[in-house]
């Protein structure tokens, strides 16, 4: 920097120090905001890294629920949801759906019989260009109450310390409710026989602006047939994908979209806590799954089933999970799309 020709002072050290201080304070504030000065902040990066299996993540795949199969179908709204939400998706009519059946595991080639949690992701679009995405699982409650607890669950489960899980369970008694379901609930032999639950609470906003805290579930029309895990283990590693492909080819599969309305005081902020069974439910329409396509070249592949992609008329509630899931899913999406070469499209699919 040239010395000022117009200044009578000699070297203006004080003023240069002021300038340096202003710039330094701004830089430090930026670094703080970015989390560089807070190593304990739970970042999306850390949360997603905690999901990885011991050998590291499967490159090119979703960081959790890595194994899945795409479908297309229709949501047939019966109009009854409009009393609770002004979202156009509840206006009586038919709306296109792209979705994905999946397994709650970070391993994309895991054997289907090994995975307790089965899931579904859906994206419903309405003609006005709005979109509703949801990712649901067959468990009736989430394993833990907060995103921080979820991170601790992942690190405990992945820990080499044999007592880590014992300590985690002792400190998080709510997890035993989930374990009760995992150990005791019947297994089925089909994605089509599962109920899928939002678990997280959202708010439906009606035409008058009134907010209704709700959760939703996809309840299968196909009756669930209980099959023992031992029996399922004898089937092929991809029996769920093969079964749903054949089943849907034979006839479309249906689920009712059932909305459960909270009573005042129900635990909306904690997806580990079920609501009492007598809560009002509203059947708002039917999901029809009409065509199955392998994920590799399928229409669901590039979709991040971010549960915060919501139409006007649905918003997040005080449940902290949708935000955490959105942040983590985004991180997972950015990673896997950058690793596309590890999970290439097939030659035939490349032309699409």
């Amino acid at each position, binding site marked *: 920097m040239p010395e000022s020709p117009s200044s009578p002072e000699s070297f203006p050290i004080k003023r240069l120090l002021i300038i340096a201080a202003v710039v330094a304070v701004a830089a430090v504030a930026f670094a703080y905001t970015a989390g560089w000065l807070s190593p304990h902040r739970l970042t999306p990066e850390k949360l997603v890294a905690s999901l990885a299996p011991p050998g590291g993540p499967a490159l090119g795949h979703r960081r959790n629920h890595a194994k899945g199969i795409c479908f297309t179908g229709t949501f047939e709204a019966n109009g009854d949801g409009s009393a609770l939400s002004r979202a156009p998706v509840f206006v009586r009519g038919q709306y296109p759906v792209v979705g994905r059946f999946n397994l709650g595991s970070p391993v994309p080639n895991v054997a289907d019989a090994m995975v307790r949690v089965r899931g579904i992701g859906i994206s419903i679009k309405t003609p006005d260009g709005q979109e509703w995405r949801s990712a649901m699982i067959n468990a009736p409650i989430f394993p833990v109450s907060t995103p921080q607890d979820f991170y601790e669950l992942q690190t405990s489960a992945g820990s080499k310390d044999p007592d880590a899980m014992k300590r985690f369970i002792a400190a998080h008694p709510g997890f035993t409710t989930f374990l009760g379901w995992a150990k005791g609930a019947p297994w089925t032999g089909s994605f089509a026989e599962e109920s899928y639950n939002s678990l997280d609470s959202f708010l439906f906003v009606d035409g008058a602006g009134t907010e209704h805290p709700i959760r939703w579930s996809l309840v299968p029309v196909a009756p669930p047939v209980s099959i023992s895990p031992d029996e399922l283990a004898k089937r092929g590693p991809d029996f769920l994908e093969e079964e749903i492909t054949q089943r849907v080819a034979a006839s479309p599969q249906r689920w009712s979209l059932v909305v459960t309305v909270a009573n005042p005081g129900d635990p909306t902020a904690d997806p580990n806590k079920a609501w009492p069974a007598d809560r009002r439910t509203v059947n708002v329409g039917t999901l029809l799954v009409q065509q199955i396509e392998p994920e590799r070249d399928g229409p669901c592949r590039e979709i991040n089933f971010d549960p915060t*992609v919501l139409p006007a008329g649905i918003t997040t509630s005080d449940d902290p999970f949708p935000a955490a899931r959105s942040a983590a899913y985004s991180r997972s999406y950015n990673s896997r799309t950058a690793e596309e070469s590890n999970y290439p499209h097939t030659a035939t699919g490349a032309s699409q």
Partner: protein
Amino acid sequence: MTTSRKRFTAPQRLLHWLMAICILSMLFIGVGMVSTITPKYLTLVQIHKPLGIAILVLALIRLVLRIVYGAPALPADLPEPIKLAANLSQYIFYALMIGMPLIGWGMLSAASYPVVLFGSVHLPPILPVSPGLHTLLWRAHYCLAFAFFVFILMHVGAILFHKLVRNDGVFEAMAPVLTRDQPK
């Protein structure tokens, strides 16, 4: 593209300071939101998108004003390399102010995300869904954000140098005071 005015016109100065607030907020929001999983994440993302589009619109208006009204000349005694840097920095800032929102919009389009501004108001995709494009644009958005912040720090350092050390009228040309422009 210089003018005989000693100061930028009032609309130009207004836009400069308004955008300074918007862009600084935007950079802090951006770097903050990707570092957290708390409910703040959603709030910040919901501000980030419409604010980015607002910056794009303001930047385009500002570019038109810049072309129409020009800029006051730099002090004649300013060394040539500094003049060059000052002029270059203006091109860089305009490129970033217009480029960053477009990259962000394109990045969301390439990832098949809806670009929701508020409520049911959303923008159409400007690029086809493509993991390759998404990765390229995401990296560009990320890296250019840090570059943008560094340029702003340099800009602040330079303008304070003009004001506190040289006191040569460069700061006054864009100062946020509403005084009538005096032609030379």
